[in-house]
């Protein structure tokens, strides 16, 4: 991202920016990403205090993959996505896109924003109620220097791509659409700049099941059609299992497990992931008597010492309260090297009685 973006756009806006680093290069690489919010205290019982919403988060997003991010509310998923989008300034850490570090210079950010787009959960508040659907979709290309007429043309193409007949929908307003249709419009708007990476933050969580299925199918189709890479954030494990190639599990601002979706859903390495999977309501669960976990997720204002999960973990031992486990490859022989977990049980010599013997 060294060369400044020419305005108006030199490339045709329907052409995505070229792949710089080649297929083996991670599209996005995040390291040590941290965000601390100053205490807003008074709202919550008069207790002021800083919130470390995201703590030293590191991961790669590979070209063409869907990386799912799961975790309970407040674990930092949305904060992480806003950091990635450049909507929030990180307290620490680095973001590298296709081999180039994301700087703070205007031209670099502008070029980055063209390649990374976002879709939010709330389909309504992310659309301007006074703009027609086609104007909303045409807005980002116009901001990036395209003439209005050309941008409206692109908007209509994108509407068709997300399954909304341009002739029928282009000139409607957001309130004239259903929630599912509005979410299609948000997706169309995110794709209008032909981004390479799309960050989807709970994109189907507000939709009814039958509509959720339509939108998930659409997202799969668009990914293939436009050669996209997704970061897909959701609290719904079934949806994440369905759509992800790899999965990242967060707890209290930290990554606790990262690996191939198949590996994680077949055998989670972190006790929190296992409990999360076992908590999914299902018909098969009818005979269960005890819940997989007790208690609520802890507050990030006052995080537990050592492993943040230790107060709720059934395997917790004294060492868990004093030692924070690093995110390390899972030390079970039949697991792939690319399966990481932050639990002392998986770490030889950690002092946990269940850990493998140190080599």
């Amino acid at each position, binding site marked *: 991202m060294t060369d400044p973006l020419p305005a108006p756009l030199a490339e045709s806006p329907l052409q995505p920016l070229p792949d710089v680093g080649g297929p083996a290069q991670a599209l996005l690489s995040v390291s040590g990403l941290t965000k601390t919010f100053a205490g807003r205290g008074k709202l919550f*019982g008069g207790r002021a205090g800083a919130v470390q919403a995201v703590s030293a988060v590191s991961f790669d997003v590979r070209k063409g993959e869907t990386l799912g991010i799961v975790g309970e509310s407040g674990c930092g998923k949305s904060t992480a996505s806003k950091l990635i989008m450049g909507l929030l300034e990180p307290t620490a850490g680095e973001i590298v896109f296709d081999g180039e570090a994301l700087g703070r210079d205007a031209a670099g950010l502008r070029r980055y924003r063209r390649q990374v787009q976002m879709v939010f959960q709330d389909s309504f508040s992310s659309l301007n109620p006074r703009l027609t659907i086609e104007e909303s979709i045409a807005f980002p290309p116009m901001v990036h220097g395209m003439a209005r007429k050309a941008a409206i043309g692109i908007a209509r193409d994108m509407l068709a791509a997300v399954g909304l007949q341009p002739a029928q929908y282009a000139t409607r307003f957001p309130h004239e659409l259903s929630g599912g249709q509005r979410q299609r419009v948000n997706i169309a708007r995110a794709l209008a700049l032909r981004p390479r990476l799309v960050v989807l933050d709970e994109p189907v969580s507000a939709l009814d*099941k039958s509509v959720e299925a339509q939108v998930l*199918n659409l997202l799969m189709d668009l990914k293939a059609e436009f050669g996209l890479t997704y970061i897909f954030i959701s*609290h*719904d494990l079934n949806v994440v299992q369905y759509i992800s190639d790899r999965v990242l599990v967060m707890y209290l601002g930290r990554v606790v497990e990262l690996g191939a979706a198949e590996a994680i859903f077949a055998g989670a390495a972190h006790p929190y992931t296992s409990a999360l999977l076992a908590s999914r309501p*299902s018909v098969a669960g009818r005979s269960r008597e005890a819940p997989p976990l007790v208690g*609520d997720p802890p507050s990030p204002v006052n995080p537990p010492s050592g492993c943040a999960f230790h107060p709720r973990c059934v395997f917790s031992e004294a060492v868990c309260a004093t030692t924070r486990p690093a995110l390390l490859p899972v030390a079970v022989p039949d697991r792939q090297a690319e399966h990481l977990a932050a639990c002392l049980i998986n770490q030889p010599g950690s002092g946990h009685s269940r850990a493998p013997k140190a080599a």
Partner: protein
Amino acid sequence: MSALQSQSQPLVKVRDLNVAFVSKEATLHAVNGVDFDLAPKETLCILGESGSGKSVTLRSLMRLHPPRRTRITGTIQVDGTDIVAASERELSSIRGRLVSMIFQEPMTALDPVFTIGKQITETIRRHEGVSHQEAQRRALDLLELVQIPSARQRLDAYPHELSGGLRQRAMIAVALSVRPKLLLADEPTTALDATVQIQVLLLLKRIQAELGMGVIFVTHDLGVAGEIADRIAVMYAGRFIEEAPAEALLEAPEHPYVEGLLGATVTPASRGRRLTAIPGSPPNLRTLPVGCAFAPRCTSAEPNCRAAVPDLRALAPDRTVRCIHPAGLRPSMPPAMAFAAEERAP
């Protein structure tokens, strides 16, 4: 009717319930001919997508609708009392004695300016006229029953001082303080995180068994219904379109909409398959179609489906469906597969 019901009088009996909201511009037909029974100690889940009439049906059992704008017809009996005909005084006695309700958002039911203990003891004293001390003791028992840790200290907590899961438990304790025979639950776990939701579901199940309450539980989540329901009734456009024992319904749905809903729901088994989305969207409740409300989206629909609302048919003693072509009586391809075929077509 289920085996449970044939043994005893139903706790709830609803016949041909219709609820419409009248305004100057239009009449909205939210509930359109609902019949069901609930046996004492039974859990019925009302399952449906948003706007299908679940909450309106539930609120009708306590007649919680705005009186001037609401038109209710049909019969609702709760423990023998006619709810449709009851006077306001009878109703408030029923609400404080026989029936309690819990909600998705606990602050709907909790008062932010009183401690949890105060809210429970006041309800108990108003309702049973016992001493303050006795009410305090019962309040403590209730907080222990809903598994609030350090219950004694929590009696002095204000609702905002509790975490989401504890607040939900406190609301349940307040609802139980009148010793209801019938608990109405309107998506009480929908806003909770997965690990907390399952705790609250199991808690409700245990309390229901311990106290022997009847429960009507509204949800849009098949998995939640699967965890908690004895029977499931699926709503679409204000009607119960299928009702059956939970396992039977989730294993082999009969109504094309229920088949579609199961196909559209993402489960662990969905990975690697294309989801079978139901095309289109639910009808406008101001201008309902004459016949089956699902006909415009249904691959099994034929002219008869559009001519009149299909009768409720009993497929088994404990199973009903409102469809001319339920899966069990359909010779050809089931609609779930038909949806898939249609979607894949270029």
